[in-house]
């Protein structure tokens, strides 16, 4: 199978345009019409379908009534990263999927209205919350992604002294570095970080726990710790040629598009291995970086693809191609050590004996070559095992074990939230669930360190 290479030169400023937010915000008239369409249901199913339980009819009513600040507050009160979620939540699986109007008309565009209200707050630079009176307790949060920020915001409102330790230069986690700019511009994440910082939360960036500060130090100096470090890099494929120049980790690759846009993929052919959310993002990023051909390689079929339907549609619209039922065998390079091709083999799906997902098995003698210039690996993420072990926490293959009501770990002074507890049927890797878990750790910490004590006088 050979591919034709489009010889193209795309100036970097058009690349930049490719990475500008794809979807326009609602116009005032649209927002007015849509907000007035909401029925203001009682005990509304949309609220229950939101992992953070945003009072959706209330925030929509406030848009209709012209109480924009109140609307933004209603959203951000329940979800400290509500502006991000307005853009990145799989709404058709969540709130919009549950809207009663699915049955009689079209669901309310809850995500877009949420964006409309939070955009107002961003535009008007509103500070929506204030810190609680100092309660004398101090909490350390490891990781400043959505889970960490959410815990910090709620803890600060309870009056805790909160310090976030963040390894990267900026907080925000994958909201800042992982979710593609054309869906989530960095400034949205920065505003949310700023809302938290303005409550007096000390955010120490470029500070990696386990390297720059020790775990013992944190345990000694703080009353409790929230572990919100997310997940780590993409694992190795374990095939020949993985060390060649032009083979990328999808997370690193996407992160690189958040700062300077690389021009070396213009006109190049890219293979993306995997078919989850990250794989789709890596593929659409490649298209937007000027690649002439982008092919996703997945060992199962369309049906088993874990990316959402809207992501699949988006990728198709961007011209991404798909090689279903194909598995990479080896990556081939030239003498200079650059990728030139990838060899794959065809798979077929067999019912698994345990009755789970159908199992891909290689078809004998079906191998084929794809000429490519780059290979992006998007086959899941590893765990931050060293830190989890330094903390001495119980875990299953790096998935930290928690009590699902309190998010307390095996060390009663350490709580964990977000992607670090995701897996093995526990939670979901979404910004909105990370935010909700962050809130829950804050409530549990408050209940343990403050409320219970007050009750006992």
């Amino acid at each position, binding site marked *: 199978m050979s591919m034709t290479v489009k010889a193209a030169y795309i100036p970097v400023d058009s690349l930049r345009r490719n990475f500008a937010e794809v979807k326009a915000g609602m116009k*005032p*008239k649209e927002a007015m019409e849509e907000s*007035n369409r909401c029925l*203001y249901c*009682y005990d509304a199913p949309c609220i229950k379908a939101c992992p953070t339980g945003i009072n959706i009819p*209330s925030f929509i*009513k*406030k848009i*209709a*009534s*012209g*109480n924009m*600040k*109140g609307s933004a*507050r209603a959203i951000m009160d329940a979800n400290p990263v509500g502006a991000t979620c307005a853009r990145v939540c799989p709404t058709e699986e969540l709130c919009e999927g549950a809207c009663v109007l699915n049955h009689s008309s079209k669901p309310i565009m809850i995500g877009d209205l949420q964006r409309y209200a939070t955009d107002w707050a961003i535009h008007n630079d509103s500070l929506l919350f204030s810190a609680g009176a100092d309660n004398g307790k101090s909490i350390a949060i490891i990781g400043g992604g959505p889970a960490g920020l959410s815990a910090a915001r709620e803890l600060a409102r309870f009056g805790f002294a909160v310090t976030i330790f963040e390894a990267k230069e900026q907080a925000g986690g994958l909201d800042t570095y992982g979710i593609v700019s054309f869906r989530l511009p960095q400034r949205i994440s920065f505003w949310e970080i700023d809302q938290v910082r303005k409550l007096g939360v000390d955010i120490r960036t470029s500070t990696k726990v386990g390297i720059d500060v020790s775990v013992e130090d944190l345990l000694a100096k703080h009353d409790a710790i929230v572990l919100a470090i997310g997940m780590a890099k993409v694992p190795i494929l374990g095939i020949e040629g993985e060390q060649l120049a032009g083979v990328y980790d999808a997370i690193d690759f996407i992160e690189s598009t958040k700062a300077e846009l690389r021009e070396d993929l213009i006109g190049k052919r890219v293979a993306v291995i995997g078919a989850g959310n990250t794989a789709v993002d890596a593929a659409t990023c490649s298209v937007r970086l000027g690649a002439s051909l982008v092919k996703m390689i997945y060992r199962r079929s369309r049906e088993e693809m874990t990316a959402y339907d809207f992501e699949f549609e988006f990728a198709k619209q961007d011209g991404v191609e798909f090689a279903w039922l194909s598995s990479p065998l080896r990556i081939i390079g030239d003498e200079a050590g650059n990728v030139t091709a990838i060899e794959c083999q065809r798979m077929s799906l067999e019912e698994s004996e345990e009755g789970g997902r159908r199992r891909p098995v290689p078809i004998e003698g079906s191998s084929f070559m794809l000429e490519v210039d780059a290979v992006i690996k998007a086959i899941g993420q590893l765990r931050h095992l060293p830190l989890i072990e330094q903390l001495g926490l119980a875990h299953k293959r790096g998935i930290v074990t928690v009590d699902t009501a309190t998010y307390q770990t095996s060390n009663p002074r350490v709580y964990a939230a977000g992607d670090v507890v995701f897996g093995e049927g526990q939670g979901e890797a979404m910004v909105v669930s990370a935010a909700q878990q962050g809130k829950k750790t804050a409530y549990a910490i408050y209940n343990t360190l403050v409320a219970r004590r007050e009750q006992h006088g």
Partner: protein
Amino acid sequence: MADLRINLAGIASPNPFWLASAPPTNTGYQVQRAFEAGWGGAVWKTLGDPIINTSSRFAAVHFNGQRVAGFNNIELISDRPLEINLKEIYETKRRFPNHAVVVSLMVEPKQEKWHEIVKRVEDIGVDGLELNFGCPHGMAERGMGAASGQQPDLVEMQTMWVKEAARTPVIVKLTPNITDITATAKAAVRGGADAISLINTINSLAGVDIETWNTIPHVGGKGAHGGYCGPAVKPIALNMVAECARNPLVGVPISGIGGISGWKDAVEFLLMGSTGVQVCTAAMHHGFSIVEDMIDGLNNYLDSKGLLSVNELIGKSVEQYSDWGDLDLNYAVVARIEQETCILCNKCHIACEDTSHQCIERHTDENGAAYLKVREEDCVGCNLCSIVCPVEGAITMLEVPAAEMPLSWNQRQAAIAALGNGKDSDNPGKKEAV
């Protein structure tokens, strides 16, 4: 956070939002739920001699897909025994000592009847009384409600009887089914009313079923006129409130009612002279929780205006409400169309062409693109185009420099009279907007 507390003629309430006397305030269970949801006060469903309500009572007018633009009912006053109501009022007040519990009353126009009910109600401990002279249906046939509310002398007399017995503040609720609302408002004040509330519902027939030819609603094939309320009546209510607020012979606090659905409506009523507001239809349409945005929206509005208390709004627009004869005849506005925002629906053009002053021209520019332009010298500033325009900001009404000094009709007439030539014959009579 501004201070939302109000005090209406001695009745204190944590915020200006009360439930009006109507189905939402029928029982202690409901009023207590309402207070829990945030309502600052409630006027209990009107008490009086026992009546019977019909089955099939309400109807609504839905307008182009929006439900309940207007609401119509043929319900009478409370159909529950007085003793039960009194017991529940007592329990409610005890549970919510800081909320305003006002009781609405309606009895036959007889002195001893009024004395008796006032005494019974005040004995259980309430914050005030509201006299319902306004129910437009059913009760009038018995010489009560609107029947007595339409006659100033009856309003005055009954208010006086109540005041003879009452120890708590007395609010007189006015019916809008009258030509000049200030006539009955003034009568109430002469009778000693501490405050007035308005409006009650407006005589109405919600509709006729074009398949069955029955009235809407109908009771076993027969209908009767009802009372209209909800968003559609707001302008009527607002005018009546304003007329009372600016009349020096009224001069008592006003509780504004009629079509209030959100905090913006409430702000308008406050600006036009209401000390607080009452709500019925909006609560019936959406439940008690709507008060949350009313409070939050009002709070944010006051903050944005830098006001510390809701009381700073009361009556601030009353002075701007005047008579037609005092309007400046030389003031001028013209319509201007913003080409960038215009979506070229041509609605403004046809509105002006067919039904106003034929001054919105349709043009084509050098690239063949259509655009619209107002011939400003012929524009009379009627606002019609900006009213029919579907796009926010596409048409602005711009003030243009006046050709001459401000001059009102009254000033003009006075000047002519002073000249003494008496030759002005175009219209010697009073001019009114029609």
